[in-house]
């Protein structure tokens, strides 16, 4: 059904324009749609986070603006839009201004690869997962630049910590993904999901897959700079870390990008371990929009796990952070890859 709408638009455009012009117009339309998704996702997730945090802390959370407080984050966003963009005198103004765009651009680029359902995926290349991991590591540059260009010691410390944290934990995320790629035998996201038709990978790969999932969740939390790995922001020690000097919309970009990154990591987890948009046991395979439904449910489940971590665990110290990565996660991960390879070789997967 969705496909029909897409082909209708395609034909409509073809009537008025040449082939190339149609192609470019379609790309622009899709980009606009994804910008919309970005904003809506960010706002919804911020609302969800605050509501969930409320329940975890025996509070109610925002519940005044709109039904269940749904419009609270929209009101907040409007407030941020209307605010003045301030900056420091000694900041490196060019870098300072472009830094937020690195973060949102990478978040948007990764968003393009997310398969919301069988039909809705903007960009499905054969090296999908590889592309995703490499693109999302560019986001660090935005945070790094922000920390450097603000000319503020707190920002600089935040930026430095980002460097340490991201480089360390990117390894774990990457290797957890490699473990699953060993099982899948492909990097293309749509194919990975197809392969899970007769059992999600977390069941197909059982023990090593579960270990890989746990490592992915830990390293993914670190990648999205969330508590307990929020040393980059660390309100109580660094003000707000790398975005201390940002105000108004520039701050909102970082804020939204953080939540969209969490969504992306949750989506990768869903694609790799829980069968993406596939329904459990294929019960609703015939219904056209069911894929979107199942994907959303699963992603919200994983995001809820992230939130559960956030409102339970206290923040790491920087040395503990590095110990966890280099002495625990990385060795376990390496052994796990070998284990998975052995299982695939001996045909022990389910």
């Amino acid at each position, binding site marked *: 059904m969705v496909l029909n709408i897409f082909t209708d638009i395609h034909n409509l455009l073809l009537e008025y324009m040449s082939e190339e012009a149609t192609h470019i117009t379609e790309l622009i339309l899709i980009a606009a749609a994804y910008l919309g998704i970005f904003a809506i996702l960010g706002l919804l997730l911020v609302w969800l986070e605050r509501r969930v945090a409320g*329940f975890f802390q*025996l*509070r109610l959370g925002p519940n005044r603006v709109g039904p269940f407080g749904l419009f609270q984050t929209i009101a907040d966003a409007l407030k941020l839009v209307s605010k003045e963009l301030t900056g420091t005198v000694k900041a490196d103004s060019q870098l300072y201004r472009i830094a937020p765009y690195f973060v949102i651009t990478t978040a948007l680029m990764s968003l393009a690869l997310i398969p919301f359902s069988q039909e809705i995926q903007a960009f499905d290349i054969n090296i999908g997962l590889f592309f995703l991991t490499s693109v999302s590591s560019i986001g660090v540059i935005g945070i790094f630049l922000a920390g450097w260009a603000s000319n503020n010691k707190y920002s600089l410390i935040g930026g430095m910590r980002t460097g340490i944290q991201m480089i360390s934990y990117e390894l774990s995320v990457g290797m957890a993904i490699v473990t699953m790629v060993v099982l899948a035998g492909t990097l293309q996201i749509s194919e990975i999901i197809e392969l899970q038709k007769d059992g999600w990978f977390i069941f197909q790969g059982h023990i090593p897959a579960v270990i890989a999932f746990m490592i992915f969740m830990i390293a993914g939390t670190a990648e999205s700079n969330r508590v307990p790995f929020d040393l980059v922001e660390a309100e109580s020690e660094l003000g707000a870390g790398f975005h201390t000097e940002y105000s108004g919309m520039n701050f909102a970009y970082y804020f939204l990008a953080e939540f969209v990154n969490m969504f992306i990591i949750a989506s990768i987890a869903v694609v790799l371990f829980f069968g993406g948009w596939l329904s459990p046991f294929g019960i609703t395979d015939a219904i056209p929009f069911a894929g979107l439904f199942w994907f959303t449910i699963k992603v919200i489940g994983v995001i809820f796990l992230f939130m559960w*971590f956030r409102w*339970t665990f206290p923040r790491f110290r920087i040395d503990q952070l590095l110990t966890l990565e280099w002495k625990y996660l990385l060795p376990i991960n390496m052994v796990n890859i070998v284990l998975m390879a052995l299982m695939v070789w001996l045909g022990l997967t389910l």
Partner: protein
Amino acid sequence: MSYFSDIINGTKTLITGMRITGKYFFVNLFTRKDVITQQYPDNIDTLKMFDRFRGEITLYHNENNEHKCDACTLCVSACPNGSLEVFGDKKPDPETGKNKRYLVKHIYHLEMCTMCGLCIEACPQDALEWGQDYHHVQYDRSKLTKVLNKPGSKLMSGIKG
């Protein structure tokens, strides 16, 4: 092998923590039983503060309109902010014929009180106690100055002056 036991211990304690917060979350999501948020202006009629809430200083009166204050002014000296003023007078006691001190006015400036509770601790007769009223908003500052002893009240019998 402390390496592996560390991992197992760590995982165990993390799960313990998550179980506790998870219980909070799901209980509140479905029942709102433990929520401590007061939706203030909405429940203004039903909201009742807990017993140990420090709302204001009050002078205890029993059902015969008798209080325990003999106007010794120790609470006045104890208050770091000068929020209390006690006016006493003397008159002959009908039983013994000696002069006895009695309370005329116990004045309390709520606007200057920090709810430190030192006056309550200082009072030798336990005459003062916490009130749970929290609704102190006034348009005029002078309305925050209160007289604590009720009109026509007298000293409880058995209290030495």
